[in-house]
């Protein structure tokens, strides 16, 4: 029984939250890594693309709610998501047309494009605030829990509870599905192969008759779809706040770099590495030790590092990876 309690406690406080957070980071990192692999620059505007996309999804959600649409236990945001993605993709393609295309044509250094994307980031940042404001917004409707702590305790009779929020479950499912779809697209379809060819060798791809502008457009659309999904899932799981999407850029980049910039598999792995390291390394094992070793209640917390250091943990991993495997865990592009 005590072992079951220990297991449930770890599931409840470490595994489930870290898995949900990891999938959100993975989706974000996938977008960053695609842009990096194909357009060859670090897109700092990615976090704010997530923000503005989510803001649009929220506005659509409100519209649908006003029309009386309901998905039963599922949040309406899922219905608004595809339309939100389409609108945001239009916006992002517009920024490509107005900003990035010029620099691509003059074959500017990647750093110039990075700076341009910083400009786009601030613009999106402001647009999001104009559109929806600075306040925290919760837009999850429908059921909150798939399994709640009370239910779980009543079912199992354990002293530890287990909660699985619907939003966490949806996050895991949607992230899994979209990764599967993306990998299938990249490996099996003509357009996906064209994208990979363009990423591997731009000139050779041009010689084989691949239309570069089409590849660029596709990349933006896919990256935006991933960003809006990541943003919406994150917003459903936690809450929407323009400021937080600016901050989430850092762990997303950490995830993409740990996995290997330019490598989609790496982005997914990196997302989970970052999320689990943040949660697990700072977890105090006092309670677990109490369950596993009967009759022993440790004085201290048995905590490896206090929670202030959780970001240090992900960045230590980042530095170690860059030192010993500069291309990332999955051999992305090295610079």
């Amino acid at each position: 029984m005590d072992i079951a309690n220990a297991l449930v406690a770890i599931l409840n406080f470490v595994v489930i939250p870290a898995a949900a957070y990891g999938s959100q980071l993975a989706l974000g990192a996938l977008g960053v890594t695609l842009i990096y692999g194909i357009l060859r620059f670090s897109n700092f505007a990615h976090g704010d693309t997530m923000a503005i996309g989510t803001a649009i999804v929220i506005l659509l959600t409100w519209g649908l709610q006003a029309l009386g649409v309901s998905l039963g236990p599922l949040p309406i945001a899922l219905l608004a998501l595809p339309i939100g993605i389409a609108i945001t993709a239009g916006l992002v393609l517009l920024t490509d047309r107005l900003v990035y295309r010029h620099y691509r044509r003059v074959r500017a250094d990647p750093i110039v494009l990075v700076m341009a994307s910083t400009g786009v980031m601030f613009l999106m940042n402001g647009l999001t605030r104009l559109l929806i404001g600075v306040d925290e917004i919760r837009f999850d409707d429908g059921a909150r829990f798939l399994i709640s702590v009370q239910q779980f305790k009543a079912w199992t009779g354990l002293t530890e509870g287990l909660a699985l929020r619907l939003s966490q479950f949806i996050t895991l499912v949607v992230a899994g599905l979209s990764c599967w779809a993306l990998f299938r697209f990249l490996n099996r379809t003509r357009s996906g192969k064209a994208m990979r060819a363009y990423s591997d060798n731009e000139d050779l791809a041009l010689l084989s008759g691949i239309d570069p502008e089409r590849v660029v457009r596709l990349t933006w659309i896919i990256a935006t779809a991933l960003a809006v999904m990541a943003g919406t899932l994150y917003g459903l799981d936690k809450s929407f706040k323009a400021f937080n999407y600016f901050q989430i850029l850092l762990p997303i980049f950490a995830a993409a770099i740990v996995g290997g910039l330019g490598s989609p598999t790496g982005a997914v792995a990196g997302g989970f590495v970052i999320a689990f390291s943040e949660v697990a390394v700072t977890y105090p094992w006092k309670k677990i030790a109490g369950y596993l070793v009967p009759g022993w209640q440790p004085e201290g917390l048995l905590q490896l590092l206090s929670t202030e250091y959780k970001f240090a943990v992900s960045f230590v991993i980042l530095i170690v990876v860059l030192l010993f495997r500069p291309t990332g865990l999955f051999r992305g592009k090295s610079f």
Partner: protein
Amino acid sequence: MKKLLLATVATAALGAGAASAEDVKIGLSLGYTGPLESMAPAMTQGAELAIKEVNDSGKFMGGSNVTSVQVDNTCTDAAASVAAVERLVTSEKVNGIMGGMCSGETIASLERVAVPNGMVMISPSATSPALTDIDDQGYFFRTSPSDARQGEVMSDIMNERGVKTAAVTYTNNDYGKGLAEAFKRFYEEAGGTVTIMAAHDDGKADYSAEVAALAAAGGDALVVAGYVDQGGSGIVRGALDTGAFDTFVFPDGMMSEALVDRFGTELASSFGQNPSAEGPTRDKFIEMTTAAGFDGNSAFAGESYDAAALLLLAMEAAKSTDPKVYKDQVLNVANAPGEKIGPGELGKALELLAAGTDIDFVGATSVELVGPGESAGVYREVDFPEGKINVVKLH
């Protein structure tokens, strides 16, 4: 059109000519972006309300006009705050500053700009105990109490309610750390046990790690010394969802309508406290803010009104807009003896001061400045039966 332009230029020229004697500028240094950006608008409106009242009375310094200049101090970035306040002092040439907003940036901008330049700063919301002992040379005041006092009140309330062990999480800045440490000291003196002191950083993507650590340490209640717009709410959400804690203790950074909107009935067994005045002067202020179209109950709106009013009243009392001169008058106008001045009576106060009569500014938050010029602080104990803010009593 041409005529209109000419007229505008002429008026502007006239205005500019008279400016040297007539125009008084108050700088508002608040975090319009950053972790407390949702509080800043109501605080600005609070200060503007006082300025408008003074202007409407027409009695300030023999008919001077007061204008305000807003700068964004970001609340978290000390360098940005120093630059913003520097701009207020050197290029805007303000006569006094209502601000800063958060403790860390307030300390930085006070030490590096206001004190060296001889500028008075009255903060409505910087509550770190560190500001009590700072070497401000008489240029700094605050209309909110120090968190050392709040830590004591919080400890008392928890003991009264029989909460004997508590986990503490605080936002990783001067406010959170100061409050959490003050609380720990008083609580342990009174026989309570703090199971863990875990800092959380604001504006981060995820708080699972903090919730996990707090849950593992356990306790009867969780003290959340954070911000409602930031990590504080993230942690409460996580702790509720995972069933880690049912009872929360909220200090002032968490105590707002937003908290109740967000968690409602889930707070049934939680409680907290925030600095607040009650009574007719408070009611009058709320009435005024409603008429002006904003919510006077918003955190620190009353303190902002008071801070701006104190600046202007001190100028009138000193018959000078020079910070080096009127800084000595701030305590005189804020405290007894003298005629009591509530919100909406600034015109009367100016008249009395012009006539040489002493005043005791009460304002929206029952201002009484103690020690080196900080509010003594009346706290209201609050709980949330049925998911609504319910005031229990005053401390």
